[in-house]
């Protein structure tokens, strides 16, 4: 029983980070109906930017802010330079193109920073809290991750539900034609979706780096988990992405704890298949059914 609690506690922060990555995937899907497999590459790239800033200034917080700005810019660039031109020709082509962007970003990162894993130490203590005479697998850094994710998700939900621009973004996702007829500049909302997704992904990258190492491909596995969470959540549901992101993190922690962490991707894949078999439209989806 105590093992079970330990494993769950250990999965909280990675679950929160998976939730952020899933959120980024959903933001892009809602705005352009493209699954952006490059999202994890963008996050990796901006984390390298954060690493450089941190080495230059010594400030983790400044590195995070610069990474967020870089993520925003990178999201907009990927949209304008790759997705928009390709999508004009073919929608499924745009999805394939995001794989191309992922590989290009990984190659570029290897050229600039080298392919060897770099350490990205946590800014605060990462040893578990000691309470009731034992050490729990939940550290001050895990708490920082959790608080950061909660703040970001709350801020996004305020933007989406309480502001004009959030309303315009949601309307553009649900019904672009009605949004345009109401005077919303839908194309700008799409760009904004990519920008916010880039920013959210960048935060996820900086937060996850201390939990693994940083190399051009070390984050790839998180894409598998985030994609699973986003699809199960319904791909167009922000709430679904967050809920199933955390859920996926906990399931992975349990699987890794009771068996071996190398089984985690298999379990994620199994969850994905079960979801597509029994509830292909996703749990939180707005739409009745999705063709598989």
């Amino acid at each position: 029983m105590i093992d079970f609690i330990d494993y769950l506690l250990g999965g909280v922060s990675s679950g929160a980070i998976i939730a952020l990555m899933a959120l980024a995937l959903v933001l892009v899907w809602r705005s352009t109906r493209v699954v952006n497999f490059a999202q994890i590459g963008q996050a990796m790239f901006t984390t390298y930017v954060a690493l450089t800033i941190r080495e230059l200034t010594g400030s983790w917080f400044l590195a995070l802010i610069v990474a967020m700005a870089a993520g925003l810019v990178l999201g907009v660039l990927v949209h304008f330079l790759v997705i928009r031109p390709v999508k004009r020709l073919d929608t499924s082509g745009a999805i394939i193109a995001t794989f191309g962007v992922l590989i290009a970003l990984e190659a570029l990162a290897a050229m600039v920073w080298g392919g060897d894993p770099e350490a990205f130490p946590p800014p605060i203590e990462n040893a578990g809290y000691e309470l009731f005479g034992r050490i729990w697998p939940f550290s001050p850094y895990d708490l920082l991750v959790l608080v950061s994710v909660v703040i970001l998700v709350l801020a996004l939900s305020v933007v989406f539900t309480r502001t004009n621009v959030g309303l315009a973004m949601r309307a553009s996702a649900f019904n672009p034609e009605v949004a345009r007829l109401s005077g919303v500049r839908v194309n700008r909302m799409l760009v904004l979706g990519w920008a916010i997704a880039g920013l959210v992904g960048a935060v996820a990258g900086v937060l996850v780096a201390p939990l693994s190492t940083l190399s051009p491909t070390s984050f790839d596995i998180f894409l598998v988990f985030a994609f699973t969470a986003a699809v199960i959540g319904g791909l167009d549901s922000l709430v679904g992405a967050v809920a199933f992101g955390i859920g996926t993190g906990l399931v992975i922690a349990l699987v890794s704890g009771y068996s071996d962490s190398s089984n985690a991707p298999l379990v994620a894949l199994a969850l994905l298949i079960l979801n597509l078999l029994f509830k292909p439209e996703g749990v939180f989806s707005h739409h009745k059914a999705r063709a598989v």
Partner: protein
Amino acid sequence: MLRIEGLSVSYGAVEALKDVSLEVPPGRVTAVIGANGAGKSTLMRTLAGLEKPKSGRVLFNEEDITGGKPEDIVRKGIALVPEGRSTIPDLTVEENLKLGGMWRTHAQRGTSLTRVYSLFPVLGERRHLGADTLSGGERQQLAIGRALMTGPQALLLDEPSLGLAPLIVTQILELVSQMAKDSGLAVLLVEQNAATALRVAKTGIVLNLGQIVKSGPAHDIAQDEELRHAYLGY
């Protein structure tokens, strides 16, 4: 106010509109009637900027707006209520309304919102509920309300009677024609349901296979037996 000169629109090889010219004056309802496939919706969608014309011009307050984008045309003062009660079910009633006219000032939008709620009290009562909880007639009111939120000088109504009970259709159309009279709104109404449309309209225009076959006072068109049999099918 709104003038259309020699408008032609094609979908590939199919000509949906051929050389259509008409005028929509302020303060009254102008009705375009015709059977399914006559080109009514194409006309409305082209005016709103959703389709690009092959030739011809659209003039609004003497300004050439031909081929403009929908989001620019609505800002100039032409609001389309598209066919099929175009509300967004995932949003609340008030969010659907607030979507209209975001570029306007806070004060202007507040005034419009108050006006929409006084025109359609049921929307005010259900402002915080999801739009998917509304009945068909209420959703049509919501769609018109959203168009009014953009502060239009011209209102384009595409087939508002579709799927609604006759009594509700009459109520909505009479409200619209009263609004036109009171506030000088130019209303272009497109309808398959010719009898109802001609009752509230001042001018009637009969469209058949993309061409205008007859236009004149709504009363005369409604009385024209031959026209009715030939083009309107009743």
